[in-house]
């Protein structure tokens, strides 16, 4: 499995650290990756008016490549009792940071926990390493159970365990759309988190708070963004990414027309059009960025059936087979990435993970693309659908306190920084996201700071979310496949109303 590819930036950092790359190499690549040292705006600014204005932003190091070794940002020092992280290597995937809360946690030494973590790949590797580290430091045994790869199936697994009020699962990964469904089964973590609660992005904390109960600590984030080919934009006379969807259409048409001459499989825009959860994310972005509101508002009213939503869906329907490949209605993330990374698409909507992969050695577009906020029709905000995972503790756990300690470790600043640098997991603490070493690994954290995060209607839909989302993506997939947008939108709204009762 190609899990050995934590990304180009990773390699860049490794190269710099180990001296495999010359300073010039590092500098060139760093520039290509868009690394610079401006004052760092709050990542995910829309996420909240966090006011912890860290002063670590001039830590430097990014411009002059060799300095990448000095990645021990100040942020880590702020974690109480974090120990000496001064010369800690945050890029080593095999060595997790020290357990800052080891003293408190050791009180529960001898307890054993079952943790539903990442199923496969690097996420699983990191989980195992962290569990081992935590056990060594605290004497709390941890069994890491790989959760099902498919989020919907993880959902069913938890549902069954919760329904049986089973103590077999103490601590688990919780998708950003689940707090509403699982609130009654998850322990309240607000007390345990205490003041530290203020160091996470506020919107995610809000999302995770159900009826005043904090059911999950934000662990890592995700959001939709636009990838575009800088070389092609320049070649065809554009000076930046598209502002509106109309711009994107125009640019994609022009570029595609020109590029088709070389490669008949070149397309303007690729996205996730398959009938699955990913299309719900894409569709929500289209809708919200075109004045079409959301699917369901926070009060549970279905707000999908409106002219703006129908209009933007119809526009995108018109793209399929014209500026988007006809097969886009079966595309998931990887299909889109394959096309883009092979140099066969001018624009792509995707999650942050595609960034480091796109800069990899085997990528045809390394150094020739950048990310930007997704377009928005004039008068609307740029948006990105929020994804990501939280750490929750089961209400039915026999070792709740020990589990909470492990949760605190997993979500601690050091660990988030390590996961960000070593494996490109987007941090949920502004202080970490603003850390220069992290910014260096993921420069888009900075360029996408102003984007409005839109959330899927998981809170109002509660445990009916799967059905609501299915009705939405099925209808949307049919629109993309040619059914009448206006009629379908009204049908979808009707279906969702029926589901919500």
């Amino acid at each position, binding site marked *: 499995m190609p899990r050995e590819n934590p990304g180009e930036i990773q390699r860049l950092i490794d190269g710099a650290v180990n001296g495999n790359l010359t300073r010039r190499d590092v500098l060139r690549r760093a520039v290509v990756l868009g690394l610079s040292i401006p004052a760092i705006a709050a990542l995910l600014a829309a996420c909240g008016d966090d006011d912890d204005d860290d002063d670590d932003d001039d830590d430097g190091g990014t411009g002059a490549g060799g300095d990448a070794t000095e990645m021990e940002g100040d942020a880590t020092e702020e974690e109480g009792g974090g120990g000496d992280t001064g010369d800690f290597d945050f890029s080593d995937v095999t060595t997790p940071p020290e357990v800052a809360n080891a003293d408190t946690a050791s009180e529960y030494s001898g307890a054993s926990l079952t943790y539903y973590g990442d199923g496969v790949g690097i996420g699983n590797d990191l989980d195992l390493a962290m569990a081992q580290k935590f056990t060594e430091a605290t004497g709390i045994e941890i069994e890491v159970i790989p959760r099902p790869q498919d989020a919907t199936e993880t959902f*069913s697994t938890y*549902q069954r365990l919760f329904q049986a009020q089973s103590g077999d699962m103490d601590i688990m990964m919780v998708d950003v759309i689940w707090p509403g469904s699982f609130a009654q089964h998850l322990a309240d973590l607000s007390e345990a988190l205490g003041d530290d609660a203020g160091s996470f992005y506020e919107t995610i904390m809000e999302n995770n708070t159900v009826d005043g109960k904090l059911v999950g600590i934000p662990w890592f984030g995700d959001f939709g963004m636009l990838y575009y080919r800088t070389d092609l934009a320049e070649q065809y006379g554009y000076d930046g990414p598209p502002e509106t969807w109309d711009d994107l259409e125009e640019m994609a048409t022009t570029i595609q027309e020109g590029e088709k001459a070389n490669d008949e499989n070149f397309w303007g825009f690729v996205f996730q059009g398959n009938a699955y959860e990913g299309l719900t994310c894409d569709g929500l972005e289209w809708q919200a960025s075109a004045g079409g509101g959301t699917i369901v508002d926070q009060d549970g009213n279905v707000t999908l059936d409106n002219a703006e939503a129908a209009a933007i869906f119809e526009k995108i329907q018109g793209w399929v087979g014209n500026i988007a490949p006809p097969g886009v209605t079966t595309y998931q993330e990887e299909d889109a990435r394959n096309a883009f990374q092979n140099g066969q698409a001018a624009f792509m909507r995707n999650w942050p993970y595609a960034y480091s992969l796109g800069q990899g050695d085997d990528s045809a577009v390394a150094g020739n693309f950048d990310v930007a906020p997704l377009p928005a029709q004039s008068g609307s905000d740029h948006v990105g659908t929020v994804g990501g995972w939280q750490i929750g503790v089961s209400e039915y756990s026999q070792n709740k306190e020990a589990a909470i300690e492990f949760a605190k470790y997993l979500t601690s600043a050091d660990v988030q920084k390590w996961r960000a640098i070593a494996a490109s997991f987007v941090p949920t603490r502004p202080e970490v996201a603003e850390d220069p070493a992290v910014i260096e690994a993921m420069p888009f954290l900075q360029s996408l700071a102003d984007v409005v995060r839109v959330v899927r209607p998981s809170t109002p839909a509660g445990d009916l979310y799967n059905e609501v989302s*299915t009705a939405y993506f099925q209808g949307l997939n049919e629109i993309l496949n040619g059914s009448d947008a206006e009629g379908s939108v009204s049908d979808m709204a009707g279906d969702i109303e029926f589901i919500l009762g």
Partner: protein
Amino acid sequence: MAEQAAVNPGGEGEGGPLRASDLTRSRTRTAWLLLLPTLLVVAVVAAFPLGQTIYLSFTNERLADLQGPEWIGLDNYRRLLEDDDFHNTIWVTVRFTFITIIAEFILGLVVALVVNSQFKGRGLMRTAMLVPWAIPTVVSAQMWAWMYNDIYGVFNDLLNRRLGIIDQNIAWIADPDYALWAVAAVDIWKTTPFVALLLLAGLQVIPEDIYEAARVDGANKLQQFYKITLPLLVPAIVVTLIFRTLDSLRVFDVFYVMFGARRDTMPMAVYAQNTIVAFSRTGYGSAIAVAIFLIIAIFVVIYVTTLRVERS
């Protein structure tokens, strides 16, 4: 098919007339003892769950609810009558069944006739025919999905670039105009050899002297086919038809792998599975399952009655 079991009288009558009833009784006991494990398995994995499914179909059981199921009478079935999504799945399934069965029969018959005649490599061919049948449907679906790929797929390369039959790559799986045909082609590929083998077995029991007699009477090849081969093949055809129809109506794997939760190509079984597993609506999902069961039963009844008419 069941009749033949009744033909054999078993190992009876060894003990003489006086002991016969005792022996019969003891043998009956032994027989039931031998059957016990099978009956237990049948009860646990089939009979009881089936009863449970029927019961649940009258309830609003949802896995997410902490309280148990509530009896709601025929509500699920009423909802089923108005459920356009479900009606669409019936339509998709029936169309798929017709397309695949017709194609499999025509192609299967051709293959069977070819393999039934003498040629070099016949044995090899017969073995090769088993292979598509033997591999998992999931695997064949993945293999074909890759061949169907809209950009890197071999079909588009072949038809567009090499042969010029189409002038633009076609998204075989994505395009609603081709999707059902695309999935049917996978099933046809996987199952035609199997149908051919069943028909071949039927062909091989037709005695050669019938053909001999026909040739003497001056019947040409075509006449021989219509007058001898086809009529004598009817039993094999009917059995194969029933097997294939049952399989097609409950098709799940290939659709699930290729289309996931897409609605315009969703067959009945995927709809039921989705309702039960992804939505945790065990009650409504059970009603769907019962409906599928009934629909399949209708087909079986139709076949069996038609078959009887033909025999008389």
